[in-house]
């Protein structure tokens, strides 16, 4: 059996308890393409596949071309410079910019988001799929979908006006007990830091991870669970022994989908973060920045060249996202044999 997770989308219908995946293999469908309907459908689906590749190639080509224009004139080191000044305001018109701060900010805020969101999402998904009675599971699933439908600018405003001002207490507490680590030291100041961004991103990626995980949990063969129960396992033990191992790769790919969204989130981050081109050891202090946030903040007033510089940073984000997705594929491929799906 194939791993179903990669094909389920967050908008898929609420829990289907008894529907089994179809047994038709794609090979048979393709070979039988002799009637016009089949041929048209084959053409359409092949066209969609090709269109996707063409679009991706076009985006990559555009990014690379414009980025090359910007990078050839950059007097700073693109990878290590802690500055974003393509207009050369401080250097007599010589462009001077780099992405070090943006890489750091993007990766750190996304990791924080995953660390917070994944356990909660798994909890919600397990609750819906294994604990909640049916009449409760459906509304909860609906509410999770609703969470995904909230536009990110609304999350941003909510984060900036409601969440951030109320985090001061938590940050002071973290500083008191964990300040010695350096990661959680807090200087005071408005709590508009990478941590705040991470918390907000966690809420934003919760629905996608939850929905995909839930679908995967529902695909666990009933036989596995019943076998565990028959051996005298409690409900938690059943989940630990049969559900989680089976669903592991699915949950990982769900998390990667979430990570993709976290990496690219733009306007919510731009609204909540207090960006500056410095790297703080502490995630609680203001400062830092992410790729998408930086592009959103600088784009409007940027000159032609400044825009190319922003596009160059966009290219890096593109590459990072590609790497993350590749890594996720690798993990999933390796886990496949251990997932118990073949049993």
């Amino acid at each position, binding site marked *: 059996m194939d791993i179903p997770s990669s094909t389920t989308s967050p908008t898929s219908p609420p829990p289907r308890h008894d529907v089994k995946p179809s047994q038709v293999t794609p090979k048979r469908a393709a070979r039988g393409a002799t009637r016009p309907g089949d041929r048209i459908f084959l053409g359409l689906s092949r066209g969609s596949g090709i269109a996707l590749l063409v679009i991706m190639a076009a985006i990559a080509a555009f990014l690379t071309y414009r980025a090359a224009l910007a990078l050839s004139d950059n007097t700073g080191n693109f990878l290590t410079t802690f500055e974003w000044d393509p207009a050369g*305001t401080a250097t007599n018109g010589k462009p001077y910019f780099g992405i070090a701060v943006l890489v750091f900010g993007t990766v750190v805020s996304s990791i924080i988001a995953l660390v917070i969101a994944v356990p909660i999402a798994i909890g919600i998904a397990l*609750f819906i799929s294994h604990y909640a009675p049916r009449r409760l599971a459906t*509304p909860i699933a609906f509410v999770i979908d609703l969470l995904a439908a909230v536009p990110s600018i609304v999350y941003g*405003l909510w984060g900036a*006006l409601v969440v951030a001002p109320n985090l001061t207490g938590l940050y002071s507490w973290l500083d008191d007990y964990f300040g010695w680590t350096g990661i959680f030291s807090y200087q005071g100041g*408005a709590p508009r830091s990478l941590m705040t961004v991470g918390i907000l991103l966690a809420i934003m990626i919760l629905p996608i991870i939850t929905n995909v995980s839930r679908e995967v949990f529902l695909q666990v063969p009933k036989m596995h669970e019943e076998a565990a129960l028959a051996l005298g396992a409690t409900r938690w033990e059943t989940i630990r022994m049969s559900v989680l191992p089976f669903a592991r790769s699915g949950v990982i790919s769900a998390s990667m989908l979430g990570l993709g969204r976290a990496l690219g989130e733009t306007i919510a981050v731009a609204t909540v973060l207090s960006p*500056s081109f410095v790297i703080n050891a502490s995630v609680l202090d203001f400062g830092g920045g992410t790729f998408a946030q930086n592009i959103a903040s600088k784009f409007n007033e940027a000159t032609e060249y400044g825009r190319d510089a922003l596009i160059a940073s966009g290219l890096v984000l593109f590459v990072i996202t590609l790497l993350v997705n590749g890594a996720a594929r690798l993990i999933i491929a390796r886990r496949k044999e251990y997932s118990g799906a073949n049993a």
Partner: protein
Amino acid sequence: MKLQRKNRLRALSLGAIAVSGALALTACGSDDTSGGSGGSGEKTNANANIKCDDAKGQLAASGSSAQKNAIDAWRKVYSTACKDVQLNYNPTGSGAGITAFMQGQTAFAGSDSALKPEEIEASKKVCKNSQAIDLPMVGGPIAVGYNVPGVDNLVLDAATLAKIFDDKIKTWDDEAIQKLNPDAKLPGTKIQAFHRSDESGTTDNFTKYLKGAAPSAWSHEPGKSWQAKGGQSANGSSGVAGQVKQTEGAISYFELSYASDGINTVDLKTDAKEPVKATVDNASKAISEAKVVGKGKDLALELNYKPTAEGAYPITLVTYEVLCEKGNKAETLAATKSFLTYIASEDGQNVLKENDYAPIPAEIISKVRTTVAGLS
């Protein structure tokens, strides 16, 4: 059996909390988006002496967001008189506005700063056989808002402001501030200086002021993006104004209209005897000391950041309309001329005051009128 029921009950209540929580969340969200507009509730004199001539059609413009409210107010009056013209001003920011104009997408651009020499050179392409010019149309004070509980009046001078925003003065009870405010009870709170995280003409003009009025205290180059290290930031004028409102010890700069709901603004100690309040009239007084530095029909201004006149507030922003001196697109020329004639007229400039903007002083605006009349 009992145990199971208990579990179910617990599950049910947990679920209920989740549902109601999420619903509340989305409800909050939709409130936030609807409350964005406002600040342009002016009294419209039904008929100002607006000449429509044969102007009609779409009039597209884009640029500076600082003059958006002014354009909105003008459009309300103008569109009642000239119903055939559909003005569409897109506040994309000055940089994007100038780019759109250079590519011939818009009839004119709004800009917070005058064109650079290379931009004028580049404009020769879109303005066949001519070049782009700057017409000052809207002035405005940039207020410095602060949030220090118990301090309703605060006087600062350029050097102190520069040190505050450069992270050199760190607490509100610093000697330099106390000296300017002998009677105020200043707390020992940390100063939290906010600047704009996006590139902005407001930042450009504010840092130009700091550099112009206190060059020894402000060593950074003025520019649309914040050059100093340190300090916190937020997105957009409403973003920084919001931070000042909710953060104790905060200070930031924004157009005066954002200070209207309950934010205290700093009185500036200039070379005049009395500290100057950030008001529209005081800004006009300072702008009237500006020199025209543009060549030919170009009316780019150079502001005087060290006024000695009583009641002249020197942190100001002048925004321009940028268009071709000659060689404007034929299909929008009539509408452009008609609209610009209106906004440069006395009626048009009077609308500004009702919207927290400062009118352009008489001497300069009369030159603008002559130039607009000669556009082709």
